[in-house]
């Protein structure tokens, strides 16, 4: 699990506050609503995991914090408050230059293509330093070598002069992390940082990120669809579905006491919870078409236990604890009592016994 306790999270200040964000894309004449009113508060020093399947909007959501949306996308509504400014209103490159790198940095998914193949690695790290840390030339180079060592690259002086194709996948990801860290950011967004890597390397990279978080006092957002990664690093989890954050809570709360049927379905799909000899659980159906307007709860058509009201009006957030809320009508006092599927209880048992998820 993550490194902060619930009290620590509640006490630390909010660095980024997103409210009712609506993002639309113009796709060949038709409009797609990728984010349908998501809200989130990011606390200083925490590790927040944004979980969801492909197409749920996790990447788009975080890219909007840095103005990295594709040119056919726009923020239609909502606010992103950072240090007193509303990032949702930023339009020009000059505005975003103040944020990118310096305040918020990003680590992309595919280390194979994230680096300029024709530039030595050291220079690419040094570029960040010269941009954001007021150093030039030799001093910047020294710091670059230090950072390369920090991210776990051995023989950093020699490696400084090498090209990306001379590094393995895991090493390249370390370089990308080095570039991000060299910007000296406040917030680090990691977009599926380990998806393209081997399992063994995954663990190393995650540990590296945790170390860097301590050393540089970073707030990290992990975007992932891998619940194993989440269990490893997250303080809090935000579950996204069809462009909305449908559940938000501490890692323990979401894993052991999930409230939204989608979260149930997601957790039930974990292969570790399967019983030998029985079919593995999978969620029937496919996510909804975001070109059309969604009425009610987006997950309702796939939910065998859906209520009629799920098809009529969109559930608001219901609070379970001060740190845990979910968008489901099941939490309304008038709703019938629905038990989570047996898998969830199984998870709780395994978790209590310190089993499945590793520290």
């Amino acid at each position, binding site marked *: 699990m993550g490194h902060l306790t619930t009290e620590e999270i509640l006490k630390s200040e909010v660095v980024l506050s997103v409210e009712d964000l609506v993002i639309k894309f113009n796709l060949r004449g038709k409009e797609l609503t990728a984010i349908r009113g998501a809200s989130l508060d990011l606390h200083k020093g925490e590790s927040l995991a944004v979980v969801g399947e492909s197409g749920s909007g996790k990447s788009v959501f975080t890219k909007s914090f840095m103005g*990295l949306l594709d040119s056919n996308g726009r923020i239609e509504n909502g606010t992103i408050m950072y240090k007193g400014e509303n990032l949702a209103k930023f339009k020009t490159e000059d505005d975003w230059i103040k944020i990118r790198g310096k305040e918020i940095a990003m680590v992309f998914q595919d280390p194979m293509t994230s680096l300029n*193949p024709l*530039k030595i690695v050291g220079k690419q790290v040094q570029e960040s330093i010269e941009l954001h840390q007021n150093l030039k030339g030799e001093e910047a180079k020294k710091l670059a070598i230090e950072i390369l060592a920090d991210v776990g690259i051995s023989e950093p002086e020699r490696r400084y002069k090498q090209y990306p194709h001379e590094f393995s996948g895991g090493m390249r990801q370390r370089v990308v992390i080095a570039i991000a860290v060299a910007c000296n950011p406040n917030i680090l967004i990691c977009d599926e940082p380990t998806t393209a890597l081997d399992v063994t390397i995954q663990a190393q990279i995650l540990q590296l990120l945790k170390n860097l978080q301590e050393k540089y006092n970073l707030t990290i957002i992990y975007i992932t669809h891998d619940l194993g990664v989440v269990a490893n690093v997250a303080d809090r989890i935000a579950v996204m579905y069809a462009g909305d954050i449908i559940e938000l809570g501490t890692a323990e709360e979401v894993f052991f006491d999930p409230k939204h049927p989608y979260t149930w379905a997601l957790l039930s799909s974990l292969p570790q919870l399967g019983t030998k000899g029985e079919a593995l659980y999978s969620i029937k159906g496919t996510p909804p078409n975001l070109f059309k307007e969604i009425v009610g709860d987006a997950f309702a058509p796939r939910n065998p236990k859906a209520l009629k009201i799920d098809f009529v009006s969109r559930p608001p957030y219901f609070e379970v604890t001060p740190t845990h809320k979910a968008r489901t009508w099941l939490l309304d006092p008038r709703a019938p009592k629905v038990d989570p599927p047996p898998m969830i209880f199984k998870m709780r048992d395994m978790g209590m016994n310190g089993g499945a998820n590793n520290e």
Partner: protein
Amino acid sequence: MKYYIKRLLRSFLTLIIVVTVVFLLMRLMPVEGYFGASFDKLDEVQKEIKLKNLGLLDPWYMQLKSFYVSLLHGDLGESITYRPKVAISSIIGSKFLISLRFGLASLVVSLVVGLSMGILMARSKGKFWDKIGTGYVVGANAVPAVIYYLLIQVFVTNWFDLPLLFEKDNPVSWILPVLCLSLVSTAYYAMWIRRYMVDELNKDYIRLARAKGLRNKTIMIKHVMRNAFVPMAQYLPASILYTISGSIYVESLFSIPGTGGLLVTAIQRQDNTLVQALVLVYSSIGIIGLLLGDIMMAAFDPRIKLGAEGGSR
């Protein structure tokens, strides 16, 4: 290293085959060509004697052999009908410098203008300048070159009062020919760099650079432009060398004494040795150009190791 030696040998072999093929093709030409106007006036015996003297009656493998033998001596042979008995090396030598100079001048112009135009087009993608540029490129590529050369000669000379014919000592007379020569390659470079830039801008590492906080302009110059030179390096040596073969149209339209018309005239006059020598020279140029291009590319692109497999071009 081994790779390059293999490449060289392969190219050499190709060269020999090419020359032989052309040689054989030339032998198919009708016999009248060797005599020009005097064909009807000579009788059979005289014709035989003349052909024999020119070595044209020997079996083809003997003719081929004597060609290669003299080649090894550095002798490209003598011209038969074009300038009888004159060493071909001197014929080519005097002309090719001029073509080379023109070629280089137009190369520089087309690079500068073409690249700038292409960059401008990429930046205003879909908008005004892009459309104008595309119109130019379409015109340059679709319409046969000679047409606009002629139109330039007709109209531009009137508007700007520029000289029509090339004079060695008059630098102003260079303007129109160089302009004409660069028209097509400018279009080529413009389209090439436009496409390259548009493609590169969508790549991941550019997104990362943007996420780092680099301005678009800086990204353009320091990342995209720098990377663009690598593939370009591959084609430069060949382009430079091709200029030696001159442009038939431009050189004849502006009366430039270069190598451009030489090949055509040689074929028309059935000057076999001259044709062979020219084909040899041009093909060698092409092959050397490609080879140099590969070396340049390997030198600039750190990803290419000198053992990689090559395919057909």
